[in-house]
Every structure is written in C-alpha cells, then in structure tokens.
C-alpha cells in the first residue's frame, strides 16, 4: 500500500513539473508558433543561479533564479526570436535548436562540463506524515507550487487586460494588431511568464538532485514539448494536461518497471510517444479550432 501511495504522490509531483514545463512551452508556441527548444536552457540558467547562491542566502537564491529565468527568456526573445517573427514555424524551431546548443556550450565553457552541486532545499528532502501515511515533503511542495503557478497563469489570462490581449494575440495575431494590441509587448510578457515557469521547474528539479550541469534542462524540455504536442497545442489546457500525463507516465515507469525492462525505459517512453502522435495527430484534447501547426 505504502509504496503505491508514495509512487502515486511522486507521479503527481513529476506530473506537476512537466506540466509547468509544457505550459511554458505552450504559452510561447501559442503567441508566436515557436516551439522553443531552448526553454531547457532557461531552466538550466535558473538552476545554476540556485546552486551558486543557495549557500549565501536562500531567499536571495530563489528571487535571483526567478529574475535570471525571466531575464534569459527576454534576452532570447529580443536578441533572436524577435527578428524571426515573420518566419515559418520550422525556421523558428531550428533557430531555437541553435540557441539551445549555443547556450549549452556557453554554460559548458563558463561552468565546466561537470555538474555543480549545492544542498538546495535540503530541509525539504524528508518524509512527513500526512493522514497517517509517510510521504515525501518535496513532492508535496512541488505539487503545491505547480498548482499555485498554474492557477496564477490562468487568472492572469482570464482576469487581466494584458492576459486577455495575450489570449487574443495567440488566437489571431493579425486581428489583435488591428485592434491595437502591441504584439511586441504581448510577446515579451509571454516570454517573461515562461521564464518564471522555467525557474519554478528549475527549483523543483534542483531540490531533487542537488546537481546542475550544462544539459540540466534538456530532458524536461524534450518531454515537456512532447507532452504539449500530445495534449494539443491549440489550447493551453491541452499543453498542461499533456505535460502532466507525460510526467506521470515517466514517474510510474521509473517506480514500477521490472528490472529487465529498465534499460529500455526511455526507449519505451519514446515508442509510446510515436504511437500517441500517430493515432492522435491533433492532440489528446483536440480543441475546436485546430491551429495550423506546421
């Protein structure tokens, strides 16, 4: 019983992390048809910040990592993606690929290929009693963080004027501009939010592993993107659900796969990805308005 519950909580926690990653990717895709492969490098940058500053002052580290996340996202936008706004999604994707590799190498050159460690959030890696069951505190915190952020983004999009403009620009960017919506501002705001979400993912992952290397954010971004596409990129809720599903599946695989299959765990996941894509090309939650994804 206990391992099952524990693994379920872990799965939900992993789901939350991947949902946040997928949302960050989905937001930017919605606003400018960019599948940002470099999202992982925003996560890595935030993670490095956490690692380096945690020993001095953990509140500072948290704030700084959020600032760094937002900052890197904005730099990516203004230095690269802004100039490619009119290009096809394929071009944008390749550019983000280049940016991703570029940042990875920069991190490698600056901080070395080996991982840097720090006891980030050490106090959180403990079991607590909740309702008579022992579960991992970190998992709980991750879930709470995920829920809070998801709700915040939702409220932003539905209750604020700027959020409404983001939704409009994502749905029909030409009409949005004709209505006077400043596309440059709206895009920048979206990137900033995705940077904040990336910082949250960085926090959750760093607390788990305590070690950050140049390719820290790659896996979560790849699977976050997979989740977003599977969930259907035409609606943000699709990205969130897709990301969540991928996270849960990954976690359950890690917990429950028999030892002989463990080596092929990653391969199995990717086989499922292919199957899912082939059978539901519109995404698991196909929205009413199917957006041109190519």
């Amino acid at each position: 019983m206990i391992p099952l519950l524990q693994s379920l909580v872990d799965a939900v926690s992993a789901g939350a992390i991947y949902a946040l990653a997928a949302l960050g990717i989905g937001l930017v895709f919605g606003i400018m048809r960019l599948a940002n492969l470099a999202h992982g490098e925003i996560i890595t940058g935030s993670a490095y910040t956490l690692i380096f500053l945690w020993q001095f002052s953990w509140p500072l580290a948290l704030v700084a990592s959020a600032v760094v996340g937002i900052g890197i996202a904005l730099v990516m936008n203004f230095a690269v993606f802004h100039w490619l706004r009119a290009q096809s999604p394929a071009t944008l994707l390749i550019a983000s690929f280049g940016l991703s590799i570029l940042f990875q190498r920069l991190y490698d050159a600056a901080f070395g290929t080996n991982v840097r460690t720090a006891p980030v959030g050490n106090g959180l890696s403990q079991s607590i009693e909740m309702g008579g069951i022992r579960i991992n505190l970190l998992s709980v915190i991750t879930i709470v963080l995920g829920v809070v952020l998801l709700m915040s983004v939702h409220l932003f999009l539905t209750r604020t004027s700027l959020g409404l403009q983001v939704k409009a620009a994502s749905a029909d960017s030409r009409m949005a501009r004709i209505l006077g919506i400043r596309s440059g501002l709206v895009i920048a705001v979206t990137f900033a939010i995705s940077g904040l979400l990336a910082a949250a993912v960085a926090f959750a992952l760093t607390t788990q592993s305590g070690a950050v290397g140049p390719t820290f954010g790659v896996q979560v971004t790849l699977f976050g993107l997979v989740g977003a596409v599977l969930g259907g990129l035409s609606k943000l809720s699709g990205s969130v659900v897709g990301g969540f599903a991928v996270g849960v599946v990954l976690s359950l695989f890690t917990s429950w796969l028999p030892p002989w299959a463990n080596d092929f765990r990653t391969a199995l996941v990717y086989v499922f990805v292919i199957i899912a894509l082939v059978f539901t090309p519109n995404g698991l939650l196909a929205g009413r308005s199917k957006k041109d994804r190519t």
Partner: protein
Amino acid sequence: MIDRKTQTKSQSRRLLAPSWAVDLWTLAVPLGAVYLFTVVGSSLSGSARVDLGYALVNLIVVVGLWVFVGNSGVLSFGHIAFVAVGGWTMSLLTLDPTIKNNVLPALFPSVQDASASPVVALILGALVGGVLAFFSGLVLMKLNGLEAGIATFALLQVVVQVLTYWDKVGPKSGQSMVGIPTSFDLPAVMTIAMVVIVVAWLYGHSTSARLLRASRDDMSAAPASGINVFRHRVIAFAVSGALAGVGGALWAQTNRVVQASQFNLDFTFLTIAMLVIGGMLSLWGAVVGTMVISTLNHFLGILEGGLDLGEVTVSIPSGSRLIVLGLSLILILILRPGGITNGREAVWPFQRKLDFLSQAHTSAVTPPTAVSTGANRAR
C-alpha cells in the same frame, strides 16, 4: 500570391545553351566543388586531411538529409538513426573476428560470424538504413510539421537506446566498438561522396521528387490534384535513409570507434545546421553548407590549439566550434533564411536568374513589412 521569380523566369529564356546543359550544370558544379574541396584540403596538412575525411562523410549525411527535408519540407530530427545503423552494419561486418569476440561477446551467433568485404558492408549499410527508413516512414509519414519533428526525434532515441543496451547486436552499454579498419582512403571516400551526390541529383529529377516538391509548396492543393503525398514522402524518406546509412558506414570506418552515444543531439544539430546554413531546399545548398561549416570548423580547431602569429599566440577555448556554429545558424536565419544558396541550385552563369529544382515559396521570400499571418487575399 504571385511569385516574383515566376515572372522573371520568362525573361530567362536567353540561356545561350540547351536546357539539358543548364540542367547538368546543377550537377557538375557540386561535383566539381567537392573535387576541388578535397584536392585543396588534402594538400594543406595532416590535420586538414583528417578533418576532410569527416567533412566528406558529413557531406554524404547532409545530402541524404536534403533528399528528404529539402523535397518534402518536413523536418526530420531522426536521420542520425540511419547513420547509426549504417555505422553499426559496417562495424559488425568488418571488425576483426578476434576483436569482435573480445569486445562483443554476447552477440547473436549469426552476427558474430558475419563478415564481409568493405564494399559489400557499405552496400549493406545503405540497405539497412533504407529499410529502417522505409518501415519507420510507413508509420511516421502521415505526420506534419512539429509532430513529424518530434516523432522522428523519438525514432532516433529508440534506435540509439536499442543499440546502447541490446548487447546481442552490439557492445555492452557504455562500451564501444574499436579497431574498425579503414578500408576506404580519402580518394575513395570522395568518390563515394560524388556518387551519393549523383544519386541525390537523379532522385531530385524523378517524378516522385517533383510531386513531393509540389506538395511542399502548397499543402492544401497537392492532395486535391491527386498527389499521394504519403507515398512520395515514404520514398524520399527511404532513399534519404539509405544515403544516411552510407554516411554512417563511412563514418564508422573513418572514426574507427563506434558507440551509440555518438549518435546524439550534437550530431543531429551539426547536420541540420549544415543543411540550413547552406540552404535547406537545394542539393547545392547541402554541399555548400557542409563545405563552409567544415572549413570553418577546421580553422576554429587550429585556433583552439593555439595559432602563432609572430609574437602573439591566438587561441580560443575548446568547445568554441559549436558556439560559433550555433551563432552562425541564428545569424543566417535572421539575415538570409534561405541559406547561403537561398535554396537555389547552382546557377548557370550566362543569364540572370535560374531555378530548376527549387521553386521557393518558403521563408526565402522576403515577407511583407507589417503583419505576417494575415490571409493574403488578392482583392
């Protein structure tokens, strides 16, 4: 939207040569360029010859990539999978039996005993790549755009994972196949590269490729005109996989050490960057891109080692190559998204504009100033 290029095409009638000559020109130029590239490169230095060997192998892979990506307009992040199986085939068939027994003890007996001459191994490498591509194409080629990119990437991961962990077809996880004999010297590799270019060129002139390009330029019109996009994509994918397999086989015998982890995202990025920088839509673009990047990489490699300029030693940190490559790719996409060749084949020099194999409706065309995603209705 009426394309400016279509307009000037009628002006380009004054070709001063029969059309078959102009057509063959688009083959002759890449071949000539590869020949020159090899001759010049091999005369520079020993390290240049080494880099040249890798450059020619990359050229084969990138040309293979063009066959699919350039003609279908669909991005593939998985081609290194075919390179991997090509390399695997070459290694397993040409490794010295004693080494094979030591490094790869757990192989299937049939694989253990199998061996072949280098040429046969090369052809088999192409076959394995092509067959794998064909069957995975049957599954994947219904997908478009981003889904196709992810699915092909997933394919790469699956193949690499299998090659890493399945010790019945390869070394144990974490270990490499070493001591692969070099059976093809530089002139031979160059010749094979030129053959690959000819094959790609011939494919590009085939009906299947033409129909595929029609679908690339207008996704909605093609099926309506009766073009079976799926079938032609599978064909392109298979041919592309076979060529990539050739590249993989030669890569194995050039590098002499093969391990699954080498067929990774960095290798994928390298080949995609070469193609895009040269010009994704044309064969000439694939060739140009590879040559330019390989040359750049060679000289960056020298700088990384430290270059003496009289009293000053100039050097850059190692790992700069990928940084420069990433920057170059981004700059090209911003400044000249069609690549160095702008998606065109080698231009017949005796007239203004010529465009045989690639009628570009893509981002090579400068977009209108203000808004991009509006419907372009001619009213």
